[in-house]
């Protein structure tokens, strides 16, 4: 649980924040928010948690936790099952999934995917939804391609030519593959359809009971995003304090990962949720059969806590 701030100013609200993935340079803004004191300025002390996204979602839904960072489609899927979660700040403006292939395959537009064998971790999660959205944008469907559920082994499968294309996280795997000397074609989902992406969620109870906390949290996140975009080198150095092994890893690759991530974060108004992107996401999910009926999207996200 949390320990609500007492009367004294010096006491911080302690918050556990699941990120859904292991420590990674992609979470640089959060590390910045801690190290630059943005969070403590907002009266919050966070403890990062690296458990699975769906587990985090369930915990927030059950009000065991107040916040989590999750992918946009997860919010809709969870709400469809009655989880009272609300998306309060967008972090990624661009849906961070891409379909990559070796140049030799000649896959340059989504339409070129027709008839190809495409590797993805499984029929769930962002890689799956991003891929389908991309196919739909070209008028294709799942039946036009061969989906190959290979777990999180897309890099290896592409390198070993198991699959002709793979659905990956745009900021990470393509960079790694290029660093290994592969020439790639990359289809970024966000270039073809705008979808609601990763962001900060809370639950309805927290919004009612402690709207100020939500506001402070969102403010700190947006401030950190802004700072990270402006100072990528410093963000990288601060990440080393949190990311195990970052100091030992291949620096040029990791800096490139950060640079690419920043491209996905950039927006006119940081933190803002675009109703169109949410509508597109819902359409995609309905088309995929993952949602049986449309939801009240106005309850799924809000911009009211943005500074």
């Amino acid at each position, binding site marked *: 649980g949390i320990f609500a701030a007492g009367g004294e100013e010096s006491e911080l609200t302690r918050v556990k924040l699941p990120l859904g993935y292991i420590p990674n340079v992609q979470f640089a803004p959060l590390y910045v928010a801690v190290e630059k004191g943005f969070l403590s300025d907002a009266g919050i002390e966070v403890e990062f948690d690296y458990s699975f996204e769906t587990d985090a979602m369930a915990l927030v839904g059950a009000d065991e936790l107040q916040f989590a960072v999750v992918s946009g489609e997860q919010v809709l899927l969870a709400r469809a099952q009655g*989880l009272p979660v609300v998306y309060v700040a967008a972090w990624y403006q661009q849906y961070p999934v891409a379909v990559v292939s070796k140049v030799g395959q000649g896959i340059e537009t989504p339409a070129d995917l027709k008839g190809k064998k495409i590797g993805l971790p499984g029929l769930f999660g962002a890689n799956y939804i991003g891929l389908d959205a991309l196919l739909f944008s070209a008028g294709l469907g799942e039946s036009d391609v061969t989906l190959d559920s290979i777990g999180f082994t897309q890099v290896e*499968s592409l390198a070993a030519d198991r699959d002709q294309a793979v659905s990956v996280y745009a900021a990470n795997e393509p960079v790694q593959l290029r660093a290994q000397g592969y020439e790639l074609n990359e289809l970024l989902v966000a270039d073809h359809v705008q979808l609601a992406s990763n962001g900060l969620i809370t639950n309805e109870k927290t919004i009612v009971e402690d709207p100020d906390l939500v506001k402070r949290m969102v403010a700190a996140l947006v401030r950190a995003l802004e700072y990270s975009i402006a100072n990528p080198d410093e963000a990288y150095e601060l990440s080393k304090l949190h990311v195990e092994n970052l100091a030992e890893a291949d620096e040029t690759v990791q800096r490139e990962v950060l640079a690419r991530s920043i491209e996905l974060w950039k927006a006119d108004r940081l933190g803002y949720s675009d109703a169109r992107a949410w509508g597109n996401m819902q359409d995609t999910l309905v088309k995929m059969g993952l949602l049986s009926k449309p939801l009240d999207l106005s309850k799924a996200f809000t911009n009211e806590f943005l500074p």
Partner: protein
Amino acid sequence: MKNKTSLLGLSSILLGLLAWDLLARFGSLPAFILPSPVDVWVRFLKAVTDGSLFFHAGVTLLEIVMGLGVGTLLATVLGYLVARSRTLERALSPYLVASQAVPLVAIAPLLVIWFGPGMFSKVFICSLIVFFPVLVNTIVGVRAVPAALHDLMRSYHAARRDILFKLEVPSALPIFLGGLRIGATLSVIGAVVGELVGADSGLGFLINVGRGQYDTALVFVALFTLMALALSLYGLVILVERRFLAWQESVER
């Protein structure tokens, strides 16, 4: 007597159901974390009606049966050889033990690359996990064959295969079947771990789907089906024990 005890098993299951229902009803957990037995039953009927449960359960069962078969076979043969030669044991045991310590999730990429993401890698993982308990208990069982009975067989100049089938197999059977009980139960995990890592069918896949769509009732349906599979396999081993170990005292002390 027999009726009484199976009644006991049944009533212990009913008791478990009741506890679960009460927990779901009056506990503080929302339905998407802990659905009630009724929710799960409804979801079960749906999954049965649309055929998806049978299909996925069938895939998993096939993987389990194959994995169990291969793992048991290899473990029995190797265990027998190792039991009869300390030299072989010293040479192999680092590999055998190490093979068990590898978290399979971590080497899945290699497995996928080597064997493809299809059924083979699941069967492989499954047989790897079945392998060790059967191996160890085969070794322990074969080593526990009474020396006096070996003497008896030697006095007849019995052929190796006679020693094997008429002495070592029946004598090691109780301990071996203990290993098989463990193996059969673990095999279910083995197949599911493979499916959780990457698959497009099977009960592990169904769990992933249920989790991805926050359909917790479906997750529970898959989990219970897995438990039912495990219990059936376990029950099969118990049946074999009843059939072949009647000579052991079954006195309740």
